[in-house]
């Protein structure tokens, strides 16, 4: 299982959970499961987010998630 940390205002789509556990080996699988279990997250994820695994922003959705990894969803990061 992978624990995905969400920002607080998403908890209204996850029955109040700030951390959602999913069965996933890759980023893509984790995001897919999140939407399957909590459909309200779909528009948020489709709108663009950044995924951070163990402190590293991971843009590649095929990236493997190692057991015990710390996964955070963040607003899409951009710069100037």
């Amino acid at each position, binding site marked *: 299982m992978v624990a995905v940390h969400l920002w607080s205002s998403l908890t209204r789509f996850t029955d109040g959970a700030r951390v959602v556990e999913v069965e996933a080996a890759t980023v893509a699988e984790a995001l897919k499961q999140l939407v399957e279990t909590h459909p309200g997250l779909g528009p948020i994820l489709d709108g663009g987010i950044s995924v951070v695994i163990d*402190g*590293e922003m991971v*843009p590649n959705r095929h990236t493997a998630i190692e057991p015990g990894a710390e996964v955070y969803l963040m607003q899409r990061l951009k710069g100037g």
Partner: protein
Amino acid sequence: MAKDEFREFKLVGTRPDRPDGLDKVTGRARYGADISAPGMLWGAVVRSPHAHARIVSIDPSKALALDGVKAVVTRADFPEGLTGEDWNLQENTIAGERALYDGHAVAAVAATSKLLAEEAARLIAVEYEVLPHVIDVDDAIKPDAPVIRAGAADASVPEGMPPNVVRYMDFGRGDVEAGFAEADLVMERSYKTEATHQGYIEPHACLGQLGADGKGEMWVCTQGQWYIRKMCTAVLGLDASQLRVTPSEIGGGFGGKTTIFMEPLSLALSRKAGGKPVKIVMSRSEVLRATGPTASASMDVKIGLKKDGTITAARAEFRMQGGAFPGAPVDMALYCCFAPYNLTNVAHVGYDVLANRPKCAAYRAPGSPMGAFAVESLLDEMCRALKIDPLQMRLKNAVKEGDKSSYGPRFGSIGLIETLEATQAHPNLSIKLGPNQGRGIAAGYWFNHNGETSVSLAISEDGTAQVSVGTPDIGGSRASIALMTAETLGIGYEDVRVNVVETGALGVNEPTHGSRATFASGKAAVIAAGHAIKEMCRRAATEWGIEPEAVEWVNGAAQPAGPNAGKHPPMTIAEIAGKMGQTGGPISGHHESVPEGVGASFGCHVVDVEVDPETGRTTILRYLVVQDAGRAIHPAYVEGQYQGGAAQGIGWALNEAYIYDDKGRLANPVFLDYRIPVASDLPMIDTVIVEVPNPGHPYGVRGVGETGITPPLPAIANAIEDAVGVRMAHLPMSPATVLAALKARG
């Protein structure tokens, strides 16, 4: 100072001449407005004089009657049915039913001369029905504010929020109330910053050509040619690959040239004028009225502090307006504002709010300077109240590798403590100050960014190398990439030419934004050089009749890796390249990825000011920037980035602001009234490059372009309080506002 001092480089870390220097000082460099084409027309844009108005009708007949006027376009010439950000871009390019801000484009015209196009634009009759408008973010978030666009809120906004709130976020951890209860001092303050413009010297300029067959070309001043392609083709309903976009040299961008403004208009005019190229060059007034300023912000911050300097809890609520479209960088502001501090209890709330202003664009560390202004100002005030040294307080709470960031994920290798220690050791902090003089300190943070990156490298017949990159050079990336490539190949800096190429030459590249060019294109160039080296070793091995694995690359030559590989004299890159046509053909390398391994960057600024109590004018006496670069590939450019960030931050702090009249019209759309700092306003800005190499980059690069604009806003506010005892909570801290604060204090 570097952590990996055992690594030695021949070229990385040196300061060779800039590859673009001669072109720029002789006027040979070609900027956006320098591009022309045979048969070219000139475009001019009709802009709304109203902050908010329904467009009743547009009558171009008088303009079209002029001899030499070839085309007029309105929204009717653009496809319907776009959604999301594509619709936002199209609506901002040219208004549909309503003009949403002063300066919003409503029509455009192409004619055979610039003067004729401008005259024709004046003759296009637009009838407006003026609507109520709202400018200030605190007014715009009120439930009864004029509604900019119903239904614009995304899924993040809960039911029942005011109609102009289009994005909402909250995040944090711990128990902030319990944290405040632990503190010896809890303070809460409100702060405001006004919208400021990136202030690039070169106005937007482009030359667009589009035929009836849907094939087009564009020459444009931009930070990202692929973004121009993607956005223009989306707005016009074209296939992306049919538009070829070539970037010009660029006279500053700072984030403001990562999007589109009038570029689709030039293409639409060209298509309507039978495929003739159409050139549009914005005036300064158009740049200020209609291109991306940053957001304005209204911020509440509450912090708990112990007498020993420990931060026990922190809470921030930020409201930002980014114009008439979603996109104010309130998320980035919240992520960055507490990032320097190791916090157990922290909460963030953010609102992205619409107002009748131009669509904001990215501006150097988008959002971070505003957030720093609020948090670093309050921390300074609290340090004064508890008589704590502000630098020691920052050192006590500073994040380090492995700590959880205030926004959640743990930090990798970072150099905040090293940066604060270097600040502490700097002689500027020992200089005694006189009457009405004060010293201010503040820290700042930026993530840095990677992004889609594609680089190609080709070895020439004489053993020199060309590198094709897709990231326009706005801060020295060509020099830095040449240094890293030359270091890797073992050849001279002058033997590498780095070219910024058009969209047909490489895979997709994100713009030069997020301080990413030297990190991402540089990393890709090093990997590409590695591929070329591998191939050159293979060719040498074939010549020598040994296995490729038995060959190594040393000082620009292939050589046997050990005595078992046989005795062969080194084969230089020039020797290998000179006969590549007879040994298998061209030798090149390329790399495409979204490079991982981004390294975040912290900075600390110290400013000494003198405030004239009679006029309220603040003079910058001395200014120090200390920042972690990871590795400074070309230190002179790094210093330039530090100084440039500080200079822009000083302008933001002291003078710059979008000023609107009661009709919502921008009252200062020229540099005479919108006052950016000039050289005579500033002392030489001192810099210290801290080097804590980023392990995610082959040469340790973090990216240096953005962090430097983050601390100046609070550092100067803190210095003003130190000088004359007034706390400025609303930018800019112009002579008038400082004088008013002094008078109010009595």
